[in-house]
């Protein structure tokens, strides 16, 4: 349990890094690292580690930690952007929001009716904090890449919550969920790439042609 909480704590720290950083590479890196951490978690959580669990862990770590960040980095280089500029929610307010959110997540998780074995775990607060971070990035950032990272972190949060159910849900379902999530992110990555080519930019302020 302590190992798990340590990993979750790290992931929560990475949330703050992603919120506070203005440089896109560091956001991508923080997201990637969080993905790898998430990949490790099932190994820590499960008591009897079969090949399926290892496969899921490796797939998660590879997908979230390597493939998608790689895609994003390629798009970033192609678009020649390094920095997030003029975000809708500034970096300091984002960071404050993130910190407050983390505290709130801890408080809220305490008031939720959790099973006794989950009461001490950081899984629920970690999930809430990551989801909040994801939302802040999705709502507050201008560059498409930051938004995709936000979406990834948001999904990481959900993944963390899903770990509560590990062991009680059939593996087939878990694998399906994972596959869907990965494909989803992959498709998003592809679209980002296409947008970069079509608009020659990844600034979402240019993506407001469709409006009332």
């Amino acid at each position: 349990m302590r190992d798990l909480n340590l990993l979750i704590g790290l992931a929560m720290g990475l949330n703050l890094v992603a919120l506070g950083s203005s440089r896109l590479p560091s956001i991508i890196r923080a997201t990637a690292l969080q993905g790898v951490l998430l990949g490790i978690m099932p190994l820590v959580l499960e008591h009897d580690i079969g090949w399926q669990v290892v496969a899921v862990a490796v797939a998660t770590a590879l997908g979230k930690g390597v493939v998608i960040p790689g895609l994003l980095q390629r798009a970033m280089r192609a678009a020649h952007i390094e920095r997030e500029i003029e975000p809708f929610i500034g970096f300091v307010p984002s960071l404050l929001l993130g910190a407050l959110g983390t505290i709130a997540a801890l408080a809220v998780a305490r008031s939720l009716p959790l099973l006794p074995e989950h009461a001490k775990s950081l899984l629920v607060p970690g999930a809430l904090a990551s989801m909040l971070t994801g939302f802040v990035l999705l709502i507050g950032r201008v560059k498409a890449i930051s938004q995709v990272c936000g979406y990834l972190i948001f999904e990481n949060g959900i993944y963390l919550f899903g770990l509560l159910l590990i062991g009680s849900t059939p593996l087939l379902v878990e694998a399906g969920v994972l596959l869907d999530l990965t494909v989803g992110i992959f498709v998003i990555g592809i679209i980002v790439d296409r947008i970069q080519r079509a608009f020659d930019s990844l600034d979402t302020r240019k993506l407001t042609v469709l409006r009332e």
Partner: protein
Amino acid sequence: MRAGPWLVLALAALTLSAVAGRRWPRTWLVLIVAGGAAAAAASVLVLSGAPGWEWRGAFRIGGEALHLRLDALSAVFLALVGVLGGAGAVYAHGYWSDAQYPASAPRGRAWWSVLVLSMTLVLTLSNGLHFLVAWESFAIAAFFLITLDGGARAVRSAGWLYLAASHAGTLALFAFFALLSARTGSWDLGPMNAQAALAPLFWLALFGFGVKAGLFPLHVWLPSAHANAPSHVSAIMSGAAIKMGVYGILRFSGWLPVPNAAGWVVIGFGAVSALLGIAFAFAQGDLKRLLAYCSVENVGIILVGVGGAMLASTAGDAVWGRLLLAGALLHVWNHGLFKGLLFMGAGSVLHATGTRELSRLGGLWRRLPWTSLMFAVGVLAVAGLPPLNGFVSEWLVYLGLFDAVTSRGPSAWAAIFAALLLGTAGALALASFVKVGATVFLGAPRGPAAAKAHESGRAMLAPMGALAALCVTLGLAPTLAWPAIARGVAAWHPAWPATAAPLALQAIGGAQLALATLLIAGAIVAWHQWRGKLARRALTWDCGYAVPTARMQYSSASFAGIVTGWFRWILWPRLALRRPRGLLPARALRLERIPETVLELVIAPVGALFLQTASGARRLQHGSLQAYILYVVVALAALGAMVLEAGAR
């Protein structure tokens, strides 16, 4: 003889005519006249004492078994629909012919059939679900008929306004029938007066049907729709279609219990409609718009009768209620006939001159003698003057009101109010139709269009002649119509059985006949005697002014000027004025426009408010994905709060 076969025949002929309408105009004409005649025959049978006809089929539509019913109340309206449907079709054959309107004439015929068919169904269906279906298809058919000449922007916007208003009414009926069926557990319609809990539903029906009937503040769609529609369509819209609203109000105040205030409200709105409708009519400068507003007045008169009957039935089934309802029902017929006639006459004028502007017409009696003659009959009838039919029904309503006053019950106050307003409205109607008749047909032509006018063909004159003949017949022999009307009254209120014509009605019939004889004799004598003394025809004397021009004639706006001033508070006349300046003024201008007050000063601002809200809301969808995700978060929070609040309780 039974009415059922005739009705089935009518439905079949009308359905066939809808199919035949696009390709074969003559077949269509034969079928629709046959259908109209069969419908009228079925109604006449029921109205002359044949048992009412009721039929339940095993055939299901929308999950409900077909249920048709023709009782005396439906028959009163169905007879009118049959007559106007047939007459209007004949008129359309000349007025909106394939030669003149190759694109829209076939469509017009098909929709005409649908309109008449669906009105027939509205009057006979006895199932709430099917009633709504027929009601809406009637409304939509009317919409497509109004916009037959879709090229003109005015026509399109008039059509849309009609459609929008009609839809608002239909939605009220939607709620009405849904609530009715939710309360009773069945879509089937029929007498259910015993269930007192149903009384509040009347307000929904009053709104829904009131929109269609053109009750005063709900009339906003009516003037422009009736003015811009092709004239045969205006004729059936004003003559029969708005009566469907009256039918609805009557039907469901007869079958359902009504709240105690219903009679007061209906008689109040009726009286106000009568007065304001005719005040607006008098001020109009557009021939067909004037006629349209006059329909508002006449619906008001009808509803005064209906409201009075409701008051009487709550005041212990007082006898005067029957007179009022009989007057209202007779006025349904009368108004249908003379307004159909007038709109057809207006159509002939429009056909001949291409304009509806009173200020461009004039002196048409010489070029359109037959149209003028029949229009004059319509004018006399609509002004409620003896010895024509308009007077008889108004007289019945007045008599009922006077009786209500002398009975000195609480409803006397409503009757006093209504009688005063009706009297004023009557005088205004006379003024309006002197104005119409004079500016269109008398004096000198005010423009080249009027000077080169030509008389309409026989297909247009014949139906006008038929309607005029019916107007005269109903005027001179009201006792002929009485049994029919009395059965209609009995169908509305079973405790008011049909009796023989009251003595006073017989007397008025005799008086009408005698008066007509006297008038015709007087006219003939005068014409023969005095024409012999005709020294010469000369320029109008005009106090000696020797070079009169047509533009010096009193115009429509100046004729109505005094009364427009009195009703300034509701008419809001808009004036564009350029005074003559200098010694030798070159130009001067005076334009008066009467706005659609309710539409422009009430509906339009409210609509603008909605549009403003809408455009404000539309700014929320400004293309920024970040905001869209924020909305998701907000929705999540709101839903969470709702659930929390529910949990807290």
